[in-house]
């Protein structure tokens, strides 16, 4: 057998019989993962592709290769910025600048949001520029049809094939990587749930770690191992027109800023002497991986499908409008036109991490060139260190619930998401396709109450109830109305009315979207101790809210654990993180097999009952003792509510007296009806998740995973450290102990908005993710370079303030500190109201303990 040297050509190299890791796919992602694995110290890494090198025929080979830096997603922006750093270091990045132009008023507002996101994620310089300034930068644009642009000078173009080659060669030079091209994977053997061997056309490679970075082919390769990678191949149309007289003297690939024509879902970029025009505007054209031809049968490359001209008709008109000088030139021809195939996922995020289906099988899929190297690095860190520096929870392959892995769901959501590629997507925007998948047992009751349903992990969950509009009158002036269309979208003042009804009387909540699983067996205690920060060796009948830490002491999750027996723990977590939390617990079960995990999500339903009258209501339905002495805060036990046996847990995420009530799902309706009837005399209101997740939570300064709680922040910074740390070992303990000894770089604070009045006189209300600035507009960043931004925002009807949470550097994390928030292009004054975790409402927590 011949080991490949650093030449990069290894087409006749035979595979080894064993490898530490086999990375399948030599696109930008596979090359990056392989390189970073070797850089982090792994050896005997094999990188395979069925195609030739350097362009094996996947989506990397036809990518447009430009990189815009700013995305509303923090995770995506971080991966992109890291990728640009890597491309720059490899010498394959050409900075060109980029302008996202607006044709409409709505888009100009959206561009001010992009300014905010840039500031929140620390991307600079960026600026909003006038049509005339756009024209100066892009002389061939018709500035008369645009209102302005969002200019990012740091935008550029990369040579992604060259980058892949460089990464391969570096890893090969270190002797850690063997590259095998023209070799197809024909099977992946799995034993006892763990990957064992990759069988290829050139022989078998035994491996305990396999990475699928096969782009649009990934689902097919994953299926060889019995695993799912939920993505669909989809068409992105591109044409190349030239020769452009203006570019005749072009010395490089690109000398003019790339233009994104956001309102038409298109882009135009110089490509040497030509202009490349791409579109996300056409009808969604989806394929299955099986539709992609084998390499030898592809006329161009397997992922360059024949161009379908009829899908591009309107786009030609749009390109002509924006760039008539070039596109309207009769001598400039369409030289090349393809339906390029790329990967789309049901939620628009990549699919990264170890498969929940097969141990040792990792996915690095649905990654585009702009975030390729950053993703490769992050995934390699995750594989080697158990955690990446950039929090990847939105991309975690374990995030998918079962129904979300179905072909129909993937295709429905990918199709719906495709035309939003450049869309103006409201932070609360709901999906329209494949709804009504998971319905609470009392769904029909909610429908009759005119619930406005939002989706959570496939569950239809009331955000508010239109039938509660009568409460608006009752609470009158105490309810803030919103006049701006943007902030009124996907929102209702009824949320605030329901909040006040709960605070004054009681509210009934649908908590069906909880993910619930039991850990049972002699090793159960050890298993839950291992992944929780708080002490789990508590008396049976206690519930414990606990952070779940990552190895570096950041927040992997936060959830509640009930001890139901000596060897029986019930874990309750949110729907969004439910599946990845489940995998995390499953991965940390006692190694000797003495604990088992049972998923009860579809067996149990949960109803929340909170408010000052909650006890009276519950007491009227049960003969069991629900007095404060008889049923203390922090405890849980079974009670009889009529004929229903209910696991009641006295806990609260809204800061009021009450219980979470768990029942078998088929008896959920009965429970709902009994509580509803019992609540009538006490003025019980059905309350949507707007109260549970936003207004009630924020008034109490309760943190939420994915908002305040991410792996990038630690327990001390979040103000959640307990007086003592349990003696038992747990994931992240070492780091946590270290954090307790350090001065935190940032402190989570609660701020309130002092004045909502915009320049136009309209009151505006932040929705979250906006940058925190000094009063005179300077950025606020901590010593680790993390910019301060609004992690959560929402109304606090009982405190009469709009509430924001943000991590601030210690020098600004001072009660009464006067700062500002940037929203829609304007600054609004805010003041630090709470430093740390003391609630804004009921700081003594008298209510929950009453």
């Amino acid at each position, binding site marked *: 057998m*011949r080991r490949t*040297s650093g*030449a990069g*050509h290894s*087409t*006749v190299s035979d595979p080894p019989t064993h490898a530490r890791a086999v990375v399948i796919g030599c696109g930008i992602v596979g090359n990056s993962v392989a390189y970073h694995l070797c850089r982090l110290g792994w050896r005997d890494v094999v990188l395979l592709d069925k195609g*030739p090198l350097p362009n094996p025929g996947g989506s990397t080979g036809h990518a447009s290769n430009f990189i815009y830096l700013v995305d509303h997603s923090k995770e995506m922006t971080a991966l992109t910025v890291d990728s640009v750093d890597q491309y720059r270091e490899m010498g394959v990045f050409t900075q060109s600048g980029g302008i996202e132009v607006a044709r409409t008023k709505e888009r100009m507002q959206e561009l001010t949001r992009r300014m905010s996101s840039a500031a929140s994620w620390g991307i600079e310089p960026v600026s909003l520029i006038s049509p005339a300034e756009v024209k100066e930068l892009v002389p061939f644009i018709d500035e008369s049809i645009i209102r302005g642009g969002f200019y990012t000078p740091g935008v550029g173009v990369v040579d992604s094939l060259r980058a892949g080659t460089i990464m391969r060669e570096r890893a090969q030079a270190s002797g850690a990587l063997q590259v095998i091209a*023209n070799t197809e994977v024909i099977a992946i053997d799995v034993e006892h749930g763990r990957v064992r061997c990759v069988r290829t056309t050139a022989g078998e490679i035994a491996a305990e770690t396999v990475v699928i970075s096969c782009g649009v082919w990934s689902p097919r390769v994953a299926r060889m191992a019995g695993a799912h990678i939920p993505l669909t191949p989809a068409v992105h149309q591109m044409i190349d*027109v030239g020769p452009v007289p203006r570019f005749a003297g072009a010395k490089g690939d690109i000398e003019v800023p790339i233009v994104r024509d956001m309102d038409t879902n298109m882009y135009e970029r110089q490509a040497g002497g030509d202009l490349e025009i791409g579109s996300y505007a056409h009808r969604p054209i989806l394929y299955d991986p099986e*539709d992609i*031809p084998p*390499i*030898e*049968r*592809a*006329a*161009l490359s397997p992922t360059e*499908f*024949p*161009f379908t*001209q009829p899908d591009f*008709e309107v786009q*030609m*008109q749009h*390109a*002509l409008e924006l760039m008539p000088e070039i*596109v*309207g*030139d*009769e*001598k*400039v*021809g*369409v*030289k090349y036109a393809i339906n390029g195939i790329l990967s789309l996922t049901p939620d628009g995020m990549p699919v990264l991490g170890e498969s929940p289906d097969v141990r040792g099988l990792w996915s690095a899929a649905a990654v585009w060139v702009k975030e390729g190297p950053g993703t490769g690095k992050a995934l390699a860190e995750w594989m080697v260190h158990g955690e990446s520096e950039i929090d990847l929870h939105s991309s975690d392959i374990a995030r998918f619930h079962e129904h979300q892995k179905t072909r129909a769901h993937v295709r429905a959501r990918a199709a719906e998401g495709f035309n939003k590629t450049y869309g103006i997507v409201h932070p609360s925007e709901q999906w329209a396709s494949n709804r009504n998948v998971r319905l609470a047992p009392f769904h029909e009751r909610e429908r009759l109450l005119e619930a406005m349903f939002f989706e959570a992990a496939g569950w239809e969950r009331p955000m508010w109830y239109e039938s509660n509009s009568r409460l608006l009158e009752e609470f009158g002036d105490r309810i803030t109305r919103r006049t701006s269309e943007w902030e009124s979208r996907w929102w209702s003042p009824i949320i605030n009315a329901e909040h006040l009804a709960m605070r004054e009387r009681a509210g009934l909540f649908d908590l069906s979207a909880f993910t619930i699983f039991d850990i049972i067996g002699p090793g159960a205690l050890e298993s839950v101790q291992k992944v929780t920060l708080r002490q789990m060796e508590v008396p049976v009948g206690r519930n414990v809210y606990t952070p779940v830490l990552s190895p570096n002491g950041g927040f992997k999750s936060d959830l509640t654990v009930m001890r139901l027996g000596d060897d029986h723990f019930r874990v309750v977590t949110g729907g969004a993180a439910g599946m990845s939390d489940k995998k995390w617990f499953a991965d940390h079960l006692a190694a000797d097999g003495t604990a088992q995990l049972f998923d009860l999500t579809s067996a149990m339903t949960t109803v929340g009952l909170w408010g000052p009258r909650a006890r009276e209501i519950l007491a009227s339905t049960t003969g069991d003792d629900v007095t404060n002495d008889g049923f203390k805060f922090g405890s849980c036990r079974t009670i009889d509510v009529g004929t229903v046996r209910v696991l009641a847990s006295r806990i609260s995420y809204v800061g009021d007296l009450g219980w979470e009530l768990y029942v078998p799902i088929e008896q959920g309706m009965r429970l709902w009806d009994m509580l509803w009837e019992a609540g009538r005399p006490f003025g019980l209101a059905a309350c949507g998740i707007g109260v549970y997740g936003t207004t009630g939570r924020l008034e109490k300064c309760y943190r939420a995973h994915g908002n305040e709680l991410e792996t990038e922040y630690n327990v001390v910074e979040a103000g959640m450290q307990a007086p003592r740390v349990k003696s038992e070992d747990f994931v992240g303990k070492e780091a946590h102990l270290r954090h307790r000894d350090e001065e935190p770089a940032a402190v989570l604070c609660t701020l309130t908005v002092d004045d909502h009045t915009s320049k136009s006189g309209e009151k505006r209300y932040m929705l979250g993710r906006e940058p925190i600035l000094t009063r005179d507009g300077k950025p606020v960043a901590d010593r680790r370079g993390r910019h301060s931004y609004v992690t959560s925002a929402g109304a606090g009807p009982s405190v009469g303030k709009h509430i924001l949470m943000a991590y601030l550097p210690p020098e600004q994390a001072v009660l009464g500190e006067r700062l500002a928030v940037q929203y829609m292009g304007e600054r609004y004054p805010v003041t630090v109201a709470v430093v740390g975790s003391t609630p804004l409402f009921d700081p003594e927590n008298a209510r929950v303990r009453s």
Partner: protein
Amino acid sequence: MRVLVCVKRVPFTGGKMVLAADSMALETKHLGFTISPHEECGVEEAVRLIEANGGESVVLTLGPAEAVEQLRDAMALGIDRAIHLRTDGSEWDPDATAAVIVDAIRTDESATGLFDLIVFGSESADSGGYQVGLRVAHALGRPAVTGLKGVKPEGGSVRCEQEVEGGRDVYVVPMPAVVTVKEGLNLPRYPSVPGRMRAGRKPVATSAPARPAARLELVRLVVPPGQGRRAEVLGSGAAAAPAVVDMLRKIGVV
């Protein structure tokens, strides 16, 4: 001047050809469609002739409904209008093809006047019969010159140039005439975006002629051996030498 150019929708084959299960057609699932390079030159020539002399250019095809794509492509390059003789997608033999094209030409000419030139590609890219142009010329009683690399109207005649070993054979024939042309006649242009947009608005006259009885029967298709081979780069420079030696050993020549 009036010029008609006839084209045929054929699969765009860049990779290994695979036959359908019954071996009666190419498997086109992964393929796009185009016209032959000869016909591309024919279209370009027609456009240039009208640009130079004024008049009208028309493109004609016999093919399935989807063949309108090829007509639009031709119109995007400057052809003025199109005639689509729609089939159910099955392959017609040259005799039948020529017969309905002749009918269509006669019909069109009776309304708009004779075509000075009727241009075909030398042969189609798929069946390669070299027949349709000649059969049409014969039926119309017009002179025909085949395999041309030069077509130059001179007054009422057309100067036709064939490339032959050592030079060119030149024929001058009176118009109206039929010519078949070969790749290399000219360098076809790319369509401009405005051209593409205009193409969508240009008229296509569609009819579905009855299929005459076939006189040539397709028995089955065979992919010639060796098709689909591809080059592999073993390396570059001196570093590639060991790989080359390996390969030579592998195939048993050293």
